[in-house]
């Protein structure tokens, strides 16, 4: 009777716990979604930055033309005159996700625009990602840790930075796919169910569709399998978790056009095949061990080892030969720069020129994962007691993620979920220990601690600390509570201030209130309404995606930096004198040249500040552009000490044309100096548009001069006079 009562009570309590954690999860989802809406509230519902504009444009195309046209899309509005095969070079996961969402909503007669769907895709998926984190951590350390980890993931600044509303980028859905794939892997590992293994392969397929970071999965799981085998943790569950993933996953991955045969041809995937072989050998060994007597087994081992060694040697030899035969040793530039952090800066200036490919600094660790950095070691320790297959996977995950994030600041994003899981485990374990006395007092409340730990989302942590005040760990827990509060403040601050600016519209606070700089869209709107549909616009590649998406004009280069020579051509044109630049642009059919200039209002990431990269990339292909020509004693300057090459290059001229007339001195607010050459004329370009704050300036190429000489006297005279003027300006001292 009494036992029945107790079990009944437990089941009710369990049900209560489940319902509670269900509601907590919903709240976590709401929290994850709403903390990312600062950008919409503070600015507007708009797509952010550069790459999201491309994704948005692709999504628009998909919703307008349908899936088949999307696969076959050859985009002739970019990389003129080469064009780009979008269907075959883009990770379609994000686009298809948002396209499907839009399609579902519209078939329910909810007329949301494609833009709205795109803007809110990232926050929606961050809610999914925090639920996936809950599932993964629950598999590792139980629901309490899961809830804590989910809360942490919902607010971790590193992830917020890539998933605020409007930042419609691959990472937005990929982090969810990554965590969910890991969850299914661990779930399969724990259950040994083929059902989950199949789901795992499908989740992996979604990840491959979404992001190039899928190679992380296909390298991490083999590493984990290998670790398990080495530590003697081989089981049939491990086999079921791994073998279907490799077979199905690789088959599915090669269905994605952008991956295709790379799924079996490039070195990023070889580790998985190697481990696939190893796990089969090990499985065979265990099988034979099961059916043979120990004596016979020893004989068999010697036999198998000798044969196996030979086979392995042969396979490895073939692999090595394959790898060696490809020029980059089978590795793509970005992957190589992962293995060798100095690779990019040495060989590929285009990769090095992107700030998110730089190694991070220490402050950025604090900025992005904050207090989690201190909780991670505790989490690792908690994972070791006791060590299971699942917890060893998480440990491996955090270790590799820490390494990768140290190489490339962008991969901080991969570290964030790992850090959240670890910290979740650490906090939950800590509460388990600190609340033990309560449990002793109420011995028939076994479900309590979990629920309570889960409840420890944000604020109740302080309460539970108050509960445990009687204990000796009083001081520590208090400290942690305050730290936790600080973290909360930090996360909200990061979400609201640091990561919400759409970068397409800028604001500044001054004495007379908020000032909005909307120059980019002003320029793009002007281009889209007042130039011919087929005009070509040349700009540095940063603005390529935005120009095609917002102005709908053909660009020469864009942010998909697949053709170095083409970018170098534009870089060369920008660093050449006017006449040479005009010839280059004329040969590319360019009609308008767009430069970004922050000197009037102090916008620091303008083209003059990026100019050295143009010189470097241009000089990498066209050796007559030499970086030292643009530097005075190794210093980059645009004032009167600047070199003549610098003062005569196109970028300088287009940026500072008639700039001196604004204040009479030509004081550049970004470089904090007066410009070197103040009065000059443009012979081959004419200013057709400059935005309100001068941040974007658009020039039109003058048509080629009439070659007939002597027939019309007046014309040749005019030519002569401009010629002499130009000569005059050239002699003009700087």
């Amino acid at each position: 009777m009494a036992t029945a009562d107790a079990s009944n009570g437990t089941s009710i309590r369990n049900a209560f716990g489940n319902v509670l954690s269900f509601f907590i999860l919903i709240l976590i989802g709401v929290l994850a979604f709403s903390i990312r809406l600062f950008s919409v509230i503070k600015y507007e519902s708009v797509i952010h930055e550069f790459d999201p504009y491309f994704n948005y444009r692709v999504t628009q195309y998909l919703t307008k033309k349908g899936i088949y046209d999307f696969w076959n899309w050859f985009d002739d509005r970019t990389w003129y005159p080469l064009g780009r095969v979008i269907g075959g070079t883009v990770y379609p996961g994000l686009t298809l996700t948002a396209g499907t969402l839009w399609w579902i909503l519209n078939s329910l007669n909810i007329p949301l625009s494609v833009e709205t769907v795109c803007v809110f895709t990232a926050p929606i998926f961050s809610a999914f990602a925090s639920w996936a984190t809950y599932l993964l951590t629950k598999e590792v350390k139980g629901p309490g840790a899961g809830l804590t980890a989910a809360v942490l993931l919902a607010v971790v600044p590193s992830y917020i930075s890539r998933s605020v509303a409007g930042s419609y980028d691959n990472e937005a859905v990929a982090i969810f796919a990554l965590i969910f794939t890991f969850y299914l892997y661990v779930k399969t590992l724990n259950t040994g169910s083929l059902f989950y293994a199949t789901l795992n392969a499908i989740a992996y397929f979604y990840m491959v569709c979404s992001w190039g970071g899928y190679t992380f999965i296909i390298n991490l799981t083999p590493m984990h399998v290998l670790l398990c085998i080495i530590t003697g943790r081989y089981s049939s569950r491990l086999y079921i978790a791994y073998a279907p993933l490799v077979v199905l996953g690789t088959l599915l991955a090669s269905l994605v056009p952008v991956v295709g045969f790379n799924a079996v041809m490039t070195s990023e995937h070889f580790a998985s095949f190697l481990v696939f072989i190893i796990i089969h050998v090990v499985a065979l060994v265990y099988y034979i061990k099961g059916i043979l007597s120990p004596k016979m087994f020893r004989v068999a081992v010697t036999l198998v080892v000798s044969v196996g060694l030979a086979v392995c040697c042969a396979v490895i030899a073939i692999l090595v030969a394959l790898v060696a035969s490809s020029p980059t040793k089978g590795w793509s530039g970005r992957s190589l720069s992962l293995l060798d952090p100095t690779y990019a800066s040495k060989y590929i200036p285009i990769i090095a020129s992107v700030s998110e490919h730089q190694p991070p600094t220490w402050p950025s660790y604090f900025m992005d994962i904050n207090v989690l950095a201190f909780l991670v070691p505790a989490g690792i320790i908690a994972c070791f007691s006791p060590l299971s297959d699942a917890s060893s996977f998480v440990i491996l995950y955090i270790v590799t993620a820490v390494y990768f994030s140290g190489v490339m600041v962008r991969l901080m994003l991969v570290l964030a979920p790992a850090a959240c899981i670890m910290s979740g485990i650490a906090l939950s374990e800590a509460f388990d220990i600190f609340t033990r006395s309560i449990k002793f007092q109420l011995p028939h409340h076994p479900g309590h601690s979990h629920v309570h730990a889960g409840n420890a989302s944000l604020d109740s942590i302080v309460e539970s600390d108050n509960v445990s005040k009687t204990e000796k760990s009083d001081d520590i827990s208090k400290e942690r509570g305050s730290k936790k509060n600080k973290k909360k403040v930090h996360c909200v601050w990061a979400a609201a201030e640091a990561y919400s600016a759409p970068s397409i519209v800028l604001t500044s606070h001054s004495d007379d209130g908020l000032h909005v700089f909307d120059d980019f869209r002003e320029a793009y709107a002007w281009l889209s309404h007042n130039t011919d549909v087929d005009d070509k616009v040349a700009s540095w590649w940063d603005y390529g995606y935005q120009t095609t998406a917002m102005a709908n004009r053909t660009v020469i280069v864009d942010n998909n930096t697949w053709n170095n020579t083409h970018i170098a051509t534009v870089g060369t044109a920008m660093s050449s004198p006017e006449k040479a630049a005009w010839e280059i642009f004329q040969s590319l059919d360019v009609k308008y040249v767009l430069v970004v200039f922050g000197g009037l209002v102090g916008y620091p990431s303008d083209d003059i500040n990026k100019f050295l990269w143009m010189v470097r990339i241009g000089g990498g292909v066209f050796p007559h552009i030499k970086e030292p020509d643009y530097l005075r004693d190794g210093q980059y300057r645009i004032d009167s000490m600047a070199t003549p090459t610098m003062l005569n290059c196109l970028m300088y001229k287009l940026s500072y044309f008639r700039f001196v007339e604004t204040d009479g001195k030509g004081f550049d607010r970004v470089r904090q100096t007066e410009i070197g050459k103040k009065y000059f004329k443009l012979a081959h370009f004419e200013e057709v548009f400059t935005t309100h704050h001068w941040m974007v300036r658009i020039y039109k190429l003058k048509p080629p001069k009439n070659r007939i000489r002597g027939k019309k006297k007046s014309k040749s005279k005019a030519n002569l006079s401009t010629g002499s003027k130009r000569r005059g300006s050239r002699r003009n001292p700087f």
Partner: protein
Amino acid sequence: MDALLRARLLHLALLISLFLSVLSQASSQELQIVNAERRIDLTSHIIKVYLTLKVENVGESPVSEVNLAFSPSEVEHLAIVKAAATTGKKKKKTYVPLGVKSTEQPAGPNGTKYFTIILLNPLGKGETATLEVLYILTRSLEPFPVEISQSESQLVYFRDSAILLSPYHVKQQTTFIKTPSTRVESFTVVEPTKRASTEIKYGPYENQPPYSYAPILVHFENNNPFAVVEELEREIEISHWGNLQVTERYSLVHAGARHKGVFSRVDYQTKPGNTGVSSFKHLLARLPPRVHSVYYRDGIGNISSSRLRTDFFKSELLIEPRYPLFGGWKSTFVIGYGVPLEDFLFESPDGGRYLNFTFGCPLADTVVDKLLVKVVLPEGSKDPKAVISFPVEQHLEIKHSYLDVVGRTVVVLEKRNVVPEHNIPFQVHYNFNPIFMLAEPLMLVSAFFFFFVAAVSYLHLDFSIRK
């Protein structure tokens, strides 16, 4: 010399027109115009012509209609013709609006088209009546030079006749042309012609036979913003939950002399009076009072430069397109706002409902080439009927919006050549059963209900194959 030639040409034209008129129109000779005074206002790009006619019946039978004649090019650009009869003298003058309709019937000489004013009381023999006519022409100023640079001001041609084109004999007439500034490059002289500061006076001319015509050309400076909305779509969505949502999609163009060559921001910012005088950067939209949730955006996001002033009688939205508009430059944008339903939706005595809203474009001083007014009625409304005081094209559409099943009926009114004078109320009558308001909430409730029932039954039933 020149004047002489012109005079001769004029005589020739008069002769021809006289001849033609004798051929075609004999019946209308029952009337004659004793005195005609025309005031042409050229100060903006919307040309307003105020015509005062004193009509006398010289025939035998009473006449109830007066015809106005327009040349084919005028008809093409004619936006509206309004007429009123004047009664009383001097200070006690009252105006009685009269009906005006376009007449197809007798095609006049050289493609002349007619508009007929219907008099309230037929004009008996020997009686006179004074009529005030206002007609508005759009897109009738032709920029010359066609392209101007940033520092130049905009010069335009205006073509008309010094003598009123009329199917009737005109005893005496005068025409005044008002230009926006004193800068008039040239104007045709048809003696007697006088020019005093911003006004050019043609006439008085005596005893002109029907269909007299004396072409004139005025070349003058007009730097007013030539803001033309090429297409405006106004969508008025009625929700019986208490809101009227208006969405207006504009495609705006500066229809003046095209901008040529360089646009220099430094000149534009430092010498505001000297450069870009014909360009404009503000537009004023007059919205209904009590508007809320106003937005102003375009295809690539919110446009941050707008100001809203509201008071009890009106709301004014001062909008600034993303960039100043020079000649030939275009821009598209959307203005949206909500207004309380009770201000615009009323119940008619027969139990139906009607919407009373303003037709036309809220932007001040703009011409709309093509205006589409779409009234989206709530789902389930029946028998829509639009009532409007001037001719428009009408048809019905179906629109699917939030969670609609059968779709909402849309009454589409289409009109070309719309000027601010078209901003008069129109009505859309329809019948609506309030029970339909609950359709969508009930649908949602039942969807969730079935979802939960499915979830509960899934959890309580055992679907496994093995027992």
